[in-house]
Every structure is written in structure tokens, then in C-alpha cells.
């Protein structure tokens, strides 16, 4: 042949690049491990719904404290039922509570509405009282005979049923209230009650009409006491006779001096309609969508704080557990042998201590110095990381002898690199899932500890759902809302986190891939 070594340059020509057949590029996007997990998570409707509910609850906890709800504690308005002025018209959140009343206490409740209409002490008819804005009785539902007496079941607005209270105010405040009354047309100050034989309880500002023993209303006819009944009042045959304190001219007295000081500085003792006094003080009418708690805080706000605390504790614990457990489990699982044995023993011992004992000891020892929440966190972390560590350990045992680890080691990767770059990402899904599934457990434990009173998380700035429930536990048969709302929220949280966690677990488990189809 010809001299192949010396082929002239001219004989060469460029190959057409178009002729070379390349591998075709994927037209679809690659689906990675996490993307795949995400896609399969989205298919699981229950988990998605759970995630949405969790987001709603979190938003509730974050947004509600910013809504300007009343943050103060109002002792008169403690344990009040849910009340919202807009919803009131359609019969929800009326602030009403249905209870049984005997005739005398029903009259008393009705009479508060009548008294509120008559600040001048000129007398008021039963009818005027019924239609008044401040009438506490919403509806009488039924009456039943019990022995000799009728027992009425009535729905009464708990806010208005507080009625009147005696209050000591400065003269300056008195003047302010007077001018506020003129400005708004709302009546705060009402006549004081005469302290005579018809006033059976001098500390109760609601006993405004003439009554004898056991709050039985009477009329004075020719100097004699005539008892009047509910029917008399309804039919208009009798009127409640006021028992107001009056001066020489017969006009009612609105204040008396109380306490020392001169005439100019002494405090005034006045009788106020608490509902309007509240409006005067705060500038808005009392309305609490979820009612108020046993101390008189807004339950909506308290619950938001409780959720915040629960979630904060749960997230912190789960994050710390994730880190601690992953590191501990990785070392255990990767090195194995004697190290594994010793570390397993340590975690065995720690997991043998009942959690409640750990929590109690931490509270007693540390709560005074560190505060309740940090010591609670310590207690959770103390035993909580063990399950994560165990999970990580098994994952490491599974992967450490696989070919890709061997390959990495042959190429000279160091232990640390193999652990974090090669094995850890493969077990990440399982570890994350386990740390999400810790959350409901932590929420439950935290609420249980505060419910039992082992951890004291109550305060003016914070509270826990468990504390709310434990405050309600002895009185909630009378005030069901105190129990229902916190219990509902905590149950929802637990259910949703469990569903969400299960969804994650299935999504991160590649072996379940395609099973559903």
C-alpha cells in the first residue's frame, strides 16, 4: 500500500459534525429522590389535607396575636361563653349559656335589662326591659315542675348577666365618665341602692328592686309587703319597685364618698353597668369568639399562645433530636463493634428511665434557674434522640457494606466523607420522617405534663393547651367551651401531624413506589 505515515494534508477533510450520532437528551425532566417523594406525597390526599390543616393552625397561632385582641385579664368576664356581635344575629356565639333558673333568679336576670333602661330612677315597665339592648335573657326554652316550684331552662347572655357592680373611682374619672356618657349616649353610672330592709345583700349591686328574704321581689302596698310573681310581671299587673337611694328632693343618688381624704380628693363609690363600663374603658364591646378562659383572658388568644408553645417545643425537640440522633446513630452504625456496644448500652440506660421521671426531675432541679420551657426542652431531648439514633444506626448498618461505599473507600474517601456524603443522604428520608413523627408525641407529652401540673407553663404572657384543659377540668361541665375548643385544637394537631408523618413515611419509602397504581 501507500505510505500511510505520510498522507498529504490536502486529503484530509473535516467530518460533518451532523453525521455523528449523539445520545439523545432526555426530553422529560429527571425525577430525583426528593422530587419523587414530593410527587407521591401529593397523591396521598389525606396527608395533603392534614398538611393544609396544620398550615391553617400555624397561621392561626401566628396571626391571631397580631389581631389586636384584648390581652388583658378581666376578672368579671371570666369563663364567659363565646360571643360575637356579628354572629349573634344568626344565633351563633351569642354569649349565651343555657342553665336552669328558679322563678326568683329568672326575675333577677330579666330585671337587669329593665334596670339598664332606667338610669334616672323614673320607673320602667317590664315590656321596656324585655326589648332593651342590655336584656341578658335571650330566650326561655322550657319550664318544668320540680317539687312545688317551676324550674325554667333559659339561655342567658353571660356578659350582660354580670349586670351592675359597685366600683370605687376617682373624681376625675367620674367627670370623664359623665362626659363620655354625654358623647356616646351610653349609660355607665346608675343610681346607688338604698341600704334598707329591702336590700338583702349590700354587696350585690344587682338587687336594685325591693325584695325580702331569698331575693323575692315585693311591692309595698299601704305599708305592707306584697310578694309578686313572674306571671304578675309578665301580665303587667305588677311592676318591680326600685329601691334606689334618693336625696331630699327624691332624685336618685349616683355616688357616695368613700375612704379618707378631703371632699376634693376622696374616691367615689358608684354603681356601674359593667357592660358599658367595659366599653368605656376599652372602647369596644366585649366580644370573644371563643369565650374567655377561667381567669378572664380571651380564649382565642390563649389558644394561639398555647399552640405557639406546643409547636415551638415540638419543633425544637424534633430538630435537636434530628441532629443529636443522626450524629450518634451514624457513629454507632458506621463504626460498629466495641464503640457500638458501649454507645448502645448508654442509650439503653437512658431509654430505661421513664420519661415522666426525667421531666419531673428536670423541672424540680432546673426550672428555678432556667425557666420552665428550657428545662422541659432538656427533658425531651434527654431521652428523645434515642429513637432517631436507633433508626439512623439501622440505616447505616444497611448501607455501610454496599458497593458504592466500598467504591468510595477504594478511591480513598475518608470516614467522615463516607458518612456524610455517601451514606447519610440515602438514609435522610427515613430520618426526617421519624423526626416529623416525633412531633405529635411531643405535643401530647407537653400537654399531658402541663395538664398534670408537673410542668407549670401558665402565665400572663404564655400558656399551654394542657394548662387550659387542666384549668377547665373541674368546671367544664358548666362551661363546656373551656374544654371543647382546646381539646378540639389539640386533637386536630395530633391527627394531622400523624397523617402528615405517615404520608411522608410512605412517600420516602421507594419500595412502595407504584404499589398504589
Amino acid at each position, binding site marked *: 500500500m501507500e505510505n500511510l505515515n505520510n498522507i498529504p494534508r490536502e486529503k484530509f477533510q473535516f467530518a460533518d459534525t451532523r453525521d455523528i450520532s449523539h445520545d439523545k437528551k432526555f426530553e422529560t425532566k429527571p425525577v430525583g429522590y426528593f422530587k419523587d417523594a414530593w410527587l407521591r406525597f401529593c397523591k396521598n390526599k389525606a396527608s395533603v389535607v392534614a398538611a393544609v390543616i396544620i398550615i391553617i393552625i400555624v397561621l392561626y397561632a401566628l396571626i391571631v396575636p397580631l389581631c389586636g385582641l384584648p390581652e388583658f385579664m378581666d376578672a368579671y368576664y371570666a369563663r364567659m361563653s363565646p360571643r360575637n356581635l356579628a354572629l349573634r344575629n344568626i344565633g351563633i356565639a351569642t354569649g349565651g349559656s343555657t342553665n336552669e333558673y328558679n322563678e326568683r333568679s329568672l326575675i333577677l336576670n330579666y330585671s337587669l335589662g329593665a334596670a339598664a333602661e332606667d338610669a334616672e330612677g323614673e320607673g320602667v315597665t317590664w315590656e321596656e326591659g324585655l326589648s332593651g339592648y342590655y336584656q341578658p335573657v335571650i330566650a326561655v326554652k322550657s319550664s318544668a315542675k320540680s317539687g312545688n316550684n317551676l324550674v325554667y331552662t333559659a339561655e342567658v347572655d353571660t356578659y350582660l348577666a354580670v349586670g351592675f357592680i359597685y366600683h370605687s373611682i376617682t373624681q376625675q374619672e367620674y367627670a370623664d365618665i359623665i362626659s363620655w356618657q354625654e358623647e356616646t349616649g351610653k349609660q355607665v353610672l346608675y343610681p346607688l341602692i338604698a341600704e334598707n330592709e329591702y336590700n338583702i345583700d349590700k354587696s350585690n349591686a344587682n338587687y336594685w328592686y325591693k325584695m325580702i328574704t331569698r331575693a323575692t321581689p315585693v311591692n309595698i302596698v299601704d305599708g305592707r309587703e306584697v310578694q309578686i310573681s313572674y306571671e304578675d310581671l309578665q301580665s303587667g299587673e305588677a311592676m318591680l319597685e326600685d329601691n334606689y337611694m334618693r336625696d331630699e328632693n327624691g332624685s336618685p343618688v349616683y355616688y357616695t364618698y368613700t375612704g379618707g381624704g378631703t371632699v376634693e380628693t376622696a374616691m367615689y363609690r358608684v354603681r356601674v353597668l359593667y357592660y358599658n363600663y367595659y366599653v368605656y374603658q376599652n372602647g369596644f364591646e366585649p366580644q370573644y369568639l371563643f369565650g374567655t378562659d377561667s381567669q378572664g383572658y380571651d380564649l382565642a388568644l390563649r389558644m394561639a399562645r398555647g399552640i405557639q408553645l406546643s409547636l415551638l417545643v415540638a419543633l425544637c425537640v424534633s430538630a435537636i433530636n434530628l441532629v443529636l440522633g443522626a450524629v450518634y446513630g451514624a457513629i454507632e452504625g458506621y463504626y460498629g463493634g466495641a464503640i457500638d456496644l458501649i454507645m448502645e448500652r448508654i442509650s439503653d440506660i437512658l431509654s430505661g428511665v421513664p420519661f415522666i421521671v426525667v421531666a419531673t426531675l428536670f423541672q424540680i432541679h432546673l426550672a428555678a434557674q432556667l425557666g420552665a420551657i428550657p428545662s422541659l426542652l432538656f427533658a425531651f431531648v434527654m431521652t428523645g434522640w434515642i429513637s432517631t439514633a436507633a433508626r439512623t444506626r439501622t440505616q447505616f448498618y444497611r448501607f455501610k457494606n454496599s458497593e458504592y461505599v466500598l467504591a468510595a473507600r477504594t478511591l480513598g474517601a475518608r470516614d467522615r466523607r463516607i458518612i456524610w456524603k455517601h451514606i447519610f443522604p440515602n438514609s435522610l428520608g427515613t430520618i426526617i420522617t421519624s423526626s416529623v413523627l416525633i412531633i405529635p408525641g411531643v405535643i401530647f407529652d407537653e400537654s399531658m405534663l402541663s395538664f398534670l401540673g408537673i410542668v407549670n407553663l401558665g402565665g400572663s404572657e404564655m400558656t399551654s393547651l394542657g394548662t387550659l384543659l387542666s384549668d377547665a377540668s373541674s368546671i367544664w361541665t358548666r362551661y363546656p367551651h373551656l374544654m371543647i375548643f382546646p381539646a378540639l385544637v389539640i*386533637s386536630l394537631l395530633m391527627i394531622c401531624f400523624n397523617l402528615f408523618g405517615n404520608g411522608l413515611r410512605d412517600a420516602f419509602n421507594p419500595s412502595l413506589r407504584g404499589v398504589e397504581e
Partner: protein
Amino acid sequence: MTKYVIKRILLMLFTFFVIITICFMLVRLLPRELPTDKNLAEIMQARWDALGYNEPLLVQYGIYLKMIFTKWDFGTSWYVQRMAPAWEVIASRILPTVLVNLYSFIISVPIGIALGAFAAIKKNKWQDHTISTLVMLFVSIPVYVYAFLVQYVFCFQLGWFPLTVSSLTDAGGSWLSPTMFWSMMPAVISLCFGQIAGLTRFTRAELTETLTADYMLLARTKGLKKSQAITRHALKNAMVPILPMIISTFISILGGSMVIEQIFSVPGVGQLYIQSIVQRDYDVFMMDTIFYTFVGLLAGIVVDISYGFIDPRIRMGEK
């Protein structure tokens, strides 16, 4: 097998000892409070001196162990039941706790297994979906919510049961009397929800796994009816993990549920625990801690060992 059992027991005792030592140190480090009553305070101070409460910690621990081993004396209750031995205080509380939990155990095990088996057989049909959804709900809802609901519906609205557990004198002086049984029912029912749900979920999971196993196919091909195959092969094999779980539940019955005891005022171990913290009665607290730790460890070890007895594969592998 014997060797394995002995090894496990020794390990457990070691763990137990370490935990108790740590807890003892932490409890004894706490400042003790004397009652306000001066005479009583003097007596108690004198007792504490005599019992060595002012010695160094390690010496105290030595005394504590010595008293336990020689006289079975776990210390004295100073506040809950004044000057009574801690062991007696807790011993009198074990029975109510066990009873409440035993009743709920007896009710929930058959129901749980039956529901679980039913759901597994009807897998992916509406029956299974209903049961699984309900189980998910019932597992998640905290036990005190059930307690409140039961208290509201059965005790308050319907008035079937008393609101709290009767006292011993009201019930005729016996924990086993019908009055006592009846008054314990609300607590029992509240405990049942969670237990049934847990057991149903576990049974369903195990049984669905055995139902898809190859030997089930073999059983059907050799001519067994579906019901025969399920009862004779699948259920039997599914029991291998279920039985240890039931056994461990049975042991942890001793621990009881603190919340339930608190709500229904069952005079049990859990209530004693709360009392001992509130009243700062540290010897009783220590006693209760020992009790809970022991029960917890025992449950764990019994499960592991019972696997060996129940599962022939593990038993054979050991030889």
C-alpha cells in the same frame, strides 16, 4: 435459650441499677422541707439525722441499699401518709391501678384483634377504609379528651356512672365489689379507645403481610378454603408479633395511665406519683420511680424473651 434469658436478665438488672443510682442522687440532692408544725419538724429532723440523711451522698446511697436488701425498707413517706413505710404506701395503690387497666385490657384485646383481622381480610374495601380511618382518629386523639367525653356523655348527661371512682368505704370495703366495678367503668372505657385502636392497627398490619405470603398461596392451591387458610395459617403466623405486644401491654398495665387516674381520681400509683411531687415527699417519689422503671424494663425484656418462646424460627436458630 437459657443462656440468652440469663444474659438478658443480668443486663436488665445492670441497667436498672444504674438508673436507680442516678435517680437516687438527683432526688437526694433536692432540698428537703420541714413542716411548719414545730414539734413535728423536730421529730422529723431527728429521724432524718438517725436515718443518715445528712451524711455524704454515697454514704446515704449505701444506707439506702442496705436497708432495701436487709429489711425491704424503701424509705419512709413523710407527707403523703405520714411516717408510713414507702413500700406499704405504694403497695396499697397497686391494686386499683391494675384493676382499671386489667378491665380495659380484657375488653380491648378481643375487640382489637377482631377488628384488625376483619380489616385485613377486607383489605381495600370500604370496611377496611372505615376501620382504618377510625383507627387513625382514635390513635391520635389524646387520652384525656376521651376521658372528658366519657365523663360528659356517660356520667354527666346520661348519669349512668358516678363522675369519679367511689372511695373504698363507699364500695363496701373491697376493690372487687360491683359498686367499685361500676364506678371504674368510665376510666376503663376511656382507656379502651386508644388500646383498641392501637391493637387494631397492629393486627391489621401484621395480618395483611401474612395474607400475601407465599405459603398462603400454597395452602389455597392444596385445597384449603379461604377461611381455613386464614385461621390455620395466616392468623397463627400473624400472632407471632401480636402476642408479645399483648404481653407487654399486660405488664405495662401496672404502670397505668396517670392522666386517667388524675381525672377520675383513681387512688392508684399514678395519682400517688403526682401527690408525691406536689407534697415534695421524696422517698415516695423515689419508690414510685423505682416502680415505673422496673415495670418499663420488665415489659421490654419479656417481649424479647417471649419472641424466643413463641417464634420457632428464633428458637431453632439459637441451638
